[in-house]
């Protein structure tokens, strides 16, 4: 087997892991499987595309590629703004939909269904605005660098891997070393008790949406940069995201990241062994295997 699958798998796994962290946080703190999470990836990618295009139009100096990378400063700047805007989108969705359903105290599954409806509506809005034609941040071509062992990596891919490592480390610090992180973990353990001891649950819910959507945006921009931007970008990643969140154990951030890498590597291995057309089935196989053998996942509590 060509060892190149390691690189492809780690790249895909980084995106899946970042997205799965958001799924696992909403699942453990808001207590429902959010089918609209994939759309945060797509919206993040498209918001960055629109902003980066606008910045490049206004200041054409921002379009010239930075160092060895294929994009100019307009993309990182647009990416930071897009993270904020995707967070706003998640908060808006919570204010007009999920928050109201929470207030009605209906069944959890109503929230799941609402997220399903929201996901279709959000995706179709993107399809309406940008059409289903694939888009790209940049037309520049990149030469892959040989890093030994027969592995070839483009500078963009190396940047994506490094960025993922930094972001995951930052999220880990946020959850374990800061007040809001501790509050988040307390609400995930026991929301009623957390409220009793004076934790602002609404604040925690806002933080969950912003962190989850922000990470989804980063994953979406990475997917857009390294592959392409399509309205179905998030939808096609949704099953891998869920598979990773469940494999890692619901509520476990390191678990979600590790499981994301496992799913990504398995997909890349399957592309070589079985064929690219079966790539999407791998997540389903992993999902079924986890539910069959160890439903709580690698690091989760009892399911």
């Amino acid at each position, binding site marked *: 087997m060509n060892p190149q699958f390691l690189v492809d798998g780690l790249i895909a796994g980084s995106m899946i892991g970042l997205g799965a962290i958001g799924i696992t946080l909403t699942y453990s703190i808001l207590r429902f*499987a959010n089918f609209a999470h994939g759309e945060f990836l797509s919206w993040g990618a498209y918001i960055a595309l629109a902003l980066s295009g606008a910045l490049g139009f206004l200041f054409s100096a921002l379009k010239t590629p930075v160092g060895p990378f294929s994009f100019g400063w307009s993309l990182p700047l647009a990416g930071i703004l897009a993270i904020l805007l995707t967070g706003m989108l998640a908060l808006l969705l919570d204010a007009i939909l999920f928050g109201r359903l929470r207030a009605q105290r209906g069944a959890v599954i*109503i929230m799941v269904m609402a997220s*399903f409806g929201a*996901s279709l*509506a959000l995706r179709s809005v993107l399809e309406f605005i940008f059409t289903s034609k694939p888009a790209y941040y940049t037309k520049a071509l990149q030469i892959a660098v040989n890093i030994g062992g027969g592995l070839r990596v483009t500078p963009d891919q190396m940047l994506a891997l490094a960025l993922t490592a930094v972001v995951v480390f930052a999220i880990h610090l946020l959850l374990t070393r800061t007040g809001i992180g501790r509050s988040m973990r307390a609400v995930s353990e026991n929301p009623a008790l957390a409220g009793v001891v004076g934790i602002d649950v609404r604040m925690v819910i806002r933080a969950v949406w912003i962190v989850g959507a922000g990470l989804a945006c980063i994953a979406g921009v990475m997917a857009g940069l390294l592959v392409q931007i399509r309205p179905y970008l998030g939808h096609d990643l949704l099953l891998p995201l869920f598979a990773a969140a469940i494999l890692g154990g619901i509520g476990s951030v390191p678990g979600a990241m590790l499981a994301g890498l496992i799913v990504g590597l398995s997909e890349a291995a399957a592309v070589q062994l079985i064929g690219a057309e079966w790539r999407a089935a791998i997540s389903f196989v992993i999902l079924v295997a986890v*539910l069959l053998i160890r439903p709580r996942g690698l690091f989760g509590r009892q399911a």
Partner: protein
Amino acid sequence: MILDLLAYGAFFLTMALTYAIMCLGLNVQWGQTGLFNVGIAGFVAIGAYASALLTTPETAGRIGGFGLPIAAGWFGGALVAGVVAYLIGALTIRLRADYLAIATFGVAVAVQLCVLNLEALTGGAFGIGFIPRPFAELAGNPLAFGLSNAGLLIAVVALLYMALEHLVRSPWGRVLRAIREDEAAAQALGKNPTRFRLQAFTIGGAIMGLAGAAQAHFIGFIAPDNYMPILTFQVWAMLIVGGSGNNRGAILGAVLVWGIWASSAAAVSTFFAPEQQARAASLQIVMIGVGLCLILLLRPRGILGEVRNVSRHIRKIMKSDDAELASRFLSKD
């Protein structure tokens, strides 16, 4: 002109009723039992392909094509979809409620991949053609053909409706609702929630398979494109609009939502230039998505809502003068 309208009406009704069958299947799973299935398109596709394989004439380069009668295909489609539903249910129903949702989403993705890639079995992206159509000998006369197909579907839906109403009112149906409303109480009465849920999920899956088979035979041609996630979404919208938990609501919702869908599709193709039609079609989906969320927020019961079913023994007491005793049974409402 009137004959044309009548023929179109029959065509519309037949299509709407195939959706009504899916909707009735979903009502067994969600309406009666509270099981969330996001993979409706997958189960419908399984039924359609199984039936097509059983009934189509032998074709070079494709496995299957047994040339069996249509009824055998319908039965086979329902059976295969039921078996898949049973397997997925057995895997996930004992776990958290939304694990089932995620697993059924996976089924839809996996089925879509299989029909695309198992070309020797499913014809790949080109699908399967020449599926025998009921009353094919009438095809020369569109009106007679349309009316007899509509009649067949009306009969199927009516039979299914009566069978399901019977099930809903049976002790079995009451156990399902008891589990949905208060699992611990039902368990305390000695009912095994997992087993009853699994039965309901399997029956619902089989009905969806039957719907897929019926639709495939009516259209005469199937391709992977017919079973995209949008199908799942439409069926959900139909059940929620009509009123989940209510079999008549499921049928009403199917006809109503299919009517809205078909007429907005017609509006899109009339009022938009061809190059803008794909865009306008995506607005159509936004509209239905927002509509579903609005109904969940504003009128979760749907148009008809659930009818309260109680045992005929209690109804007897209610009719008698002992109102106090009856009210004790119904105090929860």
